[in-house]
C-alpha cells in the first residue's frame, strides 16, 4: 500500500468513525424528541408510552363537551375519532374557528391521570366536520390544516 493511499484510507476511516459517532449520539437522543401523530385510538393503544411523549392528537371535538373559562384561561373538551375519546385541557383561548364538531389537532402530552394537556390547538378549516376519510391519517389532517391557513 502506498503511503498516500494509506493516509487517505486512514482519513476516510477516521471521518466515517467521527460521523458514525455523531450520528449515533444524534439518533440515540432523537427518541425522546420525536413528535407522534396519533388519533384517540392510537393514543389509547400506546398506553403508558403516551405519558410524557410529544403527541399531535387529531380528531373531532365531541358535541357538548366544550367548557371555556375566560377568567382562568382554561379550555376543556373531548376529542373523539368515533371509537375512542380523550379528554383534553388546553391552555389559552380557543381560536376564532373553534367550535363543537370541528376537526382539531392538539399538540401536547398525556398526563398520568389520563388527561391530554395541550399548549397548541389547531382547527381544521371547514364548517362542518367530515370524519377522516378512509386512510386519512392524523398527519394528513395536520398537513391539510396547515395548507388551509
Amino acid at each position, binding site marked *: 500500500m502506498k503511503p498516500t493511499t494509506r493516509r487517505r484510507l486512514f482519513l476516510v476511516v477516521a471521518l466515517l468513525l467521527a*460521523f458514525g459517532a*455523531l*450520528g449515533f449520539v*444524534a*439518533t440515540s*437522543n*432523537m427518541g*425522546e*424528541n*420525536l*413528535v*407522534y*401523530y396519533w388519533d384517540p385510538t392510537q393514543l389509547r393503544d400506546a398506553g403508558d408510552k403516551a405519558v410524557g411523549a*410529544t403527541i399531535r392528537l387529531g380528531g373531532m371535538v365531541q358535541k357538548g363537551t366544550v367548557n371555556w373559562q*375566560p*377568567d382562568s*384561561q382554561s379550555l376543556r373538551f373531548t376529542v373523539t375519532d368515533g371509537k375512542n375519546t380523550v379528554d383534553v385541557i388546553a*391552555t*389559552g*383561548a*380557543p*381560536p*376564532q*374557528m*373553534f367550535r363543537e364538531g370541528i376537526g382539531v389537532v392538539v399538540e401536547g402530552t398525556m398526563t398520568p391521570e389520563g388527561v391530554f394537556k395541550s399548549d397548541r390547538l389547531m*382547527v381544521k*378549516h*371547514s*364548517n362542518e366536520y367530515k370524519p377522516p376519510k378512509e386512510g386519512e*391519517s*392524523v*398527519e394528513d389532517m*395536520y*398537513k391539510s390544516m*396547515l*395548507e*388551509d*391557513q
Partner: protein
Amino acid sequence: MISLVGRTAILAALAAFSAGAVTGFMAAIRRSRDALRWSRWMAWAGAAAVVVATLAMEYALLTHDFSVSYVAEVGSRSSPTWVTIVSLWSSLNGSILLWAFILGVYLAAFAWSTRHAAIDHQPWALGVAHVVGMFFAFLVAGVANPFEPVSPVPADGPGPNPLLQNHILMVIHPPALYLGFVGMTIPFAMGATTLFAARTDAAWIRSLRRWMLVPWGFLTVGIVLGGWWSYEVLGWGGWWAWDPVENASFLPWLTATAFVHSIIVTERKDQLKGWSLTLVLATFLLTILGTFMTRSGVFNSVHAFTQSPIGPVFLAFLAIALVFSVLLLAARVDALAPGREGLGGPASRETGFLLNNLLFTAFTFTVLLGTVFPLVNESLTGKQVSVGEPYFNRFGAPLGLIIVFLMAIGPALPWGRSEPGQLLRRLVVPAAVGLVTVGACLALGLDGAWPLATFGIAAMALVETLQEFWIPARVRARARGESMAAAIAGVVTRARRRYGGYVVHIGVIMIVVAHAAAMAYTSRATLTFRPGQAEQVGDVTLTYQGARVEDQGYRLLKIASFAVQRDGRPAGVVEPRLNIYRRMGQPIGTPAVRSRLDEDLYVSLVNLDMDDQTASVDVLVRPLVWWLWFGGGVMVLGTLVALWPRRRRVPAAARVPAGAAAETGR
C-alpha cells in the same frame, strides 16, 4: 394567446439550454472557440426566452387572464395590484417559473463575465450550468407547466394563499431565497469545471469565491427575512422553529458558509482544494434536496402549501446530480495539483479554519439527520413521526456557541506558527470584557447558564473583532497622521474581503445575542379581555378599548384596540386584527408588533367575539428582537464590502491584451 406565447418561450428556452449544453461540452472536449461562442450565445438566448415567459405570466396575472391555468389557480380580480404581481411566487408552478427566470439571468451574467476567461475553464462550466437550465426549462414545459390553457375560462379566481398575501415581506423574502438557491448553480458548475479541467489557478478560485458569495448573501437575506415574516405574520411570536422548510434553506447556507472560510485557506496556502470543491458540490445538492423537500409535500410543515408530481422528478434530478458529483470527485480529485505548502501549527489561523469547517460540517450533518429522519422512518416502519425542536436545540445551541467562541479566537490567530504568549496578550482585553459582561449581567439579575455564557462569549468575539479594526487603524493613523475614521476606512479598503467578513461577524454576534436574550427573557401571557379591562405583562399594561370591523372588499378586518402603558406612561395604541378573506373560511391573524431597541411588544389576536366584545390575545414582551433583523442587515452590508469590486490599479495604456487579461477573470 398568452398561454401560447409563454409556452413557445419556454420551449425556446429548453432548446437554447440544450444546444448550449451540447456546444459547451463540445467546446470543452475539442477546445473549439466557435463552439464556445455558440454556447455563450445560447445562454443569452435561453435567458431572453425565460424572461419573455416570465413577463408573459406577469402580463396574464395583471390582466386577469383566467384562460391561463396558473392565473386561474392564484389570480383574483379583488386582489390588490401588488398581491397580483407577487402571485408569481405564491404557488408551485409559478415559483418554478421564477426559478427558471433567475437561473437564466445568472447564466447570462456568468457567460458575460467570463467571456474572456481561459478556454480550459469556461466551456465545462457553461455546459454544466446549461444542463441545470435545461432541467428547469423542462419542468416548466412539462410537469410544472403554468401556461396550461383553461376551458371554459372562469370569471374569477380564488386569489393566492391568504397567508402569503398578508404581509409585504412576501414581496422580497421568496425572491431573495430563490436568488440564493438558484445562484448556487454557478459555483456548482465552476466547481465541476475545476475538477474536469484539474486547474486551480488563483484567478479562477477568486472568481469562484465571488460567485459563491453572491448567492450566499441572498440566502442570508432570504433566511433572515423568512424569520421576520414568520414573526410578523404567524402570530406565535417566534422566528425559527426548525421546520423542515427552514432547515432546507439553512443546510446549504451552512455548507456555503463553511466554503467561504475554507476557500481562504485554499487561496492563501493552496490547501484544502478538494475539500473546498466538495463543499461547493454539497451546497448545490442541498439546494436541490431543499427544493425537493419544500415542493413535493413529503414533509408536514407550516410552509407546505402544495403537493405535486414534481417530487419524483426532483428526486431523480437529485440522484443524478449526487452520483455525478461523487463520481467526479472520486475520479478527479487526485488530478488537482497537491498544495505547495503545509498547513500551519496547532495554534494557527489554518487550524482555526479547519475547526470552523469541522463545526459547520457537524452542524449540517445533525440538521440534515433531524430533517430527513421522519422520511426514512416512515418509509421503513410506516409510522409517522417528526423530530421536535429540542433535538435541534440540543445540538444547535452548543455548536453555535463554539462557533462564536471560534469567532473570538480565530482572527487573533496568525498564519503559520504562533507564539502562545503573543496570542494570549492579544486575547486579554476581549476575554476580560467577556467576563465583565457576565458579571454585569449577574449584577443586573439576569440568570440562566446558556444566555449568560452566550453574552460573555459574544462580548469577547465583538471586542476581538473591533480590535481587528482598531489596532491596525491606530498604527496607520500614527504613521500617516490621519484621523482615526480615515485610517479605519483606509484599513478596510486595503483588505475589503477580510473586513467585509468581520462586519458579517458583527452581524452574526448581534443575531446570536438577540436570539439568546429573546428566548430566555420573554414575558408571555394569554389573556381574555372584556371592554375596559386592563392587564399587565412585563413592564407593559394593556387596556382594551373595544373592537370594530372594517371592510376592504377582498377581506374583512376584525380589529381589537388596546391602549398601551409602559411603566405607567401612555405609549400609544396597538391594534391586532384577524383578516377574513372572502374566498377562504379560515381567518388569518395580523399581530400588532411594537418594536423598540430594548424590547418588542407583540400582541396577537386569537379570538374576537363581536357579540359581547370579548377579545382573547397572546401577549409577549420580548427583549432585543429588533436586533435580529438589524444584524441581518449588518451581514448584508459586510457581504457588500467583501464583494465590492476593487478599483483597477493598472492604467489603461498598460493593460495586457485581451487573451492574457482574461486570465484575471474580471
